[in-house]
């Protein structure tokens, strides 16, 4: 492959995207990803190397897309939940349930792949609805409500697999996580399809508006007649569906259902992806594509470390630094205290982005209190 040419095309493409996004919040997430990729371009030999083998593309960037699919899928559901001011800690466990149900139906019950997949997704939707019932119906705090399924879910998954790791060879199931479409991993297609579907759900219905409204000001939404409970119920159900899909991809990747390890800690990665993508944990305005890019960023970070022979065991440390950095970025107090430091920086960046998102570097105004 003529690497420098393909790299050049890549960077022109990326640069164009960045340019179009200037002035929007997602600029920063994509920018962070760009920085990371730039680092790899110069300092990690072979990172940008792409091969075409057997009609499929291979390379580190492709790995990122493939491996990151699970978290990208999770983040689609998680961002909506967080936007309503909640959180879903159970997605990892639900992934395990999805893997368990599908594998069991496939191998032990000898059902066709279509049934196995459909059943797994249906059950995960129910799991999400259960969370929704606890949060919207009973008014239980989301962290607590989803903690229940987080703990019990894995047990349920193990119950379904009867403690075994179920291996399967069914071509359809295997294709989900390992197949290729148009020379690129099928998982990429899956993510894109889900992204489009979610965008449709958000933009073509009023759900996007209601979610942001409920997350931004619950009381005012209620006064305006928004059915806040229905909105909350729906987002948790959807999160369950996303987790179900991610679980199918996960078990397909390893061609087996390991109820113990599938999805382990992925809920935390998903939350991180959402936050890196620009959505605040408080809720309100959310950035769907930002969350997906955030997931890409995290995966790129992981893959970068791997490519540089940093042990995968140690890779959580940079993740921790990312969390801190993002939180500081979002913290009003931090911005207020360091605004003076950043002013020269904003002057440099101004030509690059026509309007810096929000009040990024300005001191929060202290409003005059009611007399």
């Amino acid at each position, binding site marked *: 492959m003529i690497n420098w040419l393909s790299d050049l095309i890549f960077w022109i493409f990326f640069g164009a995207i960045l340019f179009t996004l200037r002035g929007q919040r997602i600029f920063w997430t994509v920018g962070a990803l760009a920085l990371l990729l730039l680092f790899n371009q110069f300092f990690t030999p072979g990172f940008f190397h792409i091969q075409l083998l057997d009609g499929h593309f291979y390379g580190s960037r492709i790995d990122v897309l493939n491996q990151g699919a699970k978290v990208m899928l999770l983040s689609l559901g998680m961002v909506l939940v967080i936007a309503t001011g909640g959180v879903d800690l159970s997605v990892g466990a639900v992934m395990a349930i999805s893997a368990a149900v599908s594998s069991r139906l496939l191998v032990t019950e000898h059902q066709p792949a279509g049934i196995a997949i459909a059943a797994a997704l249906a059950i995960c939707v129910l799991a999400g609805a259960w969370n929704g019932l606890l949060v919207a119906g009973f008014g239980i705090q989301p962290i607590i409500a989803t903690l229940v399924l987080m703990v019990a879910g894995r047990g349920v998954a193990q119950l379904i697999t009867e403690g075994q790791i179920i291996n399967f060879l069914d071509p359809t199931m295997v294709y989900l996580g390992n197949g290729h479409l148009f020379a690129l991993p099928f998982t990429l297609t899956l993510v894109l399809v889900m992204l489009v579907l979610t965008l449709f759900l958000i933009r*073509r*219905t*009023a*759900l996007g*508006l*209601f979610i*942001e*409204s409920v997350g*931004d*000001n619950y*009381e*005012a*939404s*209620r*006064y*305006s*007649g*928004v*059915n806040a409970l*229905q*909105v909350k119920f*729906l987002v948790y159900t959807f999160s369950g569906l996303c987790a179900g899909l991610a679980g199918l991809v996960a078990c397909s990747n390893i061609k087996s259902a390991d109820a113990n390890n599938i999805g382990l800690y992925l809920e935390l990665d998903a939350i991180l992806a959402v936050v890196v993508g620009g959505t605040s944990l408080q809720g*309100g*305005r959310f950035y769907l594509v930002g969350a997906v890019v955030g997931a890409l960023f995290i995966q790129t970070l992981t893959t970068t470390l791997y490519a540089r022979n940093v042990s995968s065991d140690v890779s959580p440390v940079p993740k921790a630094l990312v969390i801190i950095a993002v939180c500081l970025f979002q913290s009003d107090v931090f911005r207020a205290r360091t605004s003076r430091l950043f002013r020269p920086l904003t002057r440099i960046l101004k030509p690059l982005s026509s309007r810096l998102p929000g009040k990024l570097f300005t001191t929060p105004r202290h409003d*005059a*209190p*009611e*007399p």
Partner: protein
Amino acid sequence: MATPLLEVTALSKGFPGVKALDAVDLTVQAGEIHALMGENGAGKSTLIKVLTGVFPRDAGETRLEGKIIAPKSPREAEALGISTVYQEVNLVPHLSVAENICLGRQPTWFGAIRWGAIARRARAALARLDLSLELKRQLSSYSIAIQQMVAIARALDISAKLLILDEPTSSLDKSEVEELFKKLRKLREGGLGIIFITHFLEQVYDISDLITVLRNGRRVGCFATRELPRIKLVSHMIGKDVREVEALERKRASAATIRSDQPMLEAKGLGRKGFIHPLDLEIRPGEVLGLAGLLGSGRTETARLLFGVDRPDQGTILMNGRTVKFNSPRAAIRYRIALTPEDRKVAGIIPNLTVRENVVLALQASRGTWRRLTVSDQEKLADRFIKSLDIKTPNREQMLRNLSGGNQQKVLLARWLATEPKLFILDEPTRGIDVGAKAEIEKLIQSLRQEGLAVLFISSELEEIVRQSQRVVILRDRRKVGELTEAEISEEAIMQSIATAEMERPAA
């Protein structure tokens, strides 16, 4: 002349754009209950915050028992002897009564808390109020009235010389108020100085020795309660002299021409404990019904009951003759009722959503989740109202938080106008809005009425009520005390109604 307990001289405090306090004087003696009154924006709570060190003052001086003080925090003020008990009873709900009284000053023995000493101290503090409670019981298991007493006991335990009570009776019923007043009188006899902030007229006459009235940051005057007729107090608070009012030329809205006699909404005996006493109300299409009364008289509470935000304990609501029950705002909206709330920050604006999104929200909510308004419809809708209400915004995608208060209010109005309601409840729609915008909103109300809407107009400004309404219902101390129609409506009449309404006098 004994040294006054508290002497505030020429206190001033300003914020960007508003002078909250302008050379205010206040003198409180020991053994005196001094009421502090004023309408919205008068400066009462700023005065208290400056006194207790929450804000630094711009000018003026405060003397406690003759010595100049300048506390920099509520804790410092407490140490000096000034304690405040707020309406929201700022105590810790899950700790016990005794703990709440002693929190922060628990007696210890080498770092370990002496619970016995705490119990003794708490018991003594409560005894000063003739109160005896189960000290180990969780505070939240007691009623708000009792919790308030505990807060007072805490304040006393910190050896307060001056006790400031900020709206202490808003959530209390009659017997609880009597109990509280009994305790306050006892404390007064003990030499405590008490500043009592309230808007309940009868209570002021019941308990206070002196009344200081503030208006727009200035002190209107300090009066001996016994010598101040109610009508004078009302006029001081509103800022209008009764005789002046008669002489002023009044512009009145033209008499309703489009009106039917069938009321659109009827409330019969509608009430809720702690909110409002049962009242009757009728709103007819093509008519503006003004709801007048001083701050805290129950107007917003009434609106909330009519909109389904709160549920009534008693009485019924009828829409076009049929009994209805509003369990939530959605139910009321289904009957084509709209409400712009009094506190738009809390219940109105969605700050991080755009102007367009805020405008279409209620309409979209009524259509449900699945039938979305197309973007172009949304844009047309937003543009229509930006134009018709003259909303000043660079574009419709501006975040609502960036607009001025007046324009935010207009966006809220647009939100509800978009739903084409039949009954429009406007709770203080012109509060915090510049004069120009005010006039526009008033014009809007009249045009709504001409179109046949029924309008319930709540305002603290009497002139507005008088100008806009065909009928006026007057509330005072959470009760309906009068109703005026057409020619009867005048500021004087409203003020008289508020002042002279017969109240059951609580037992002395």
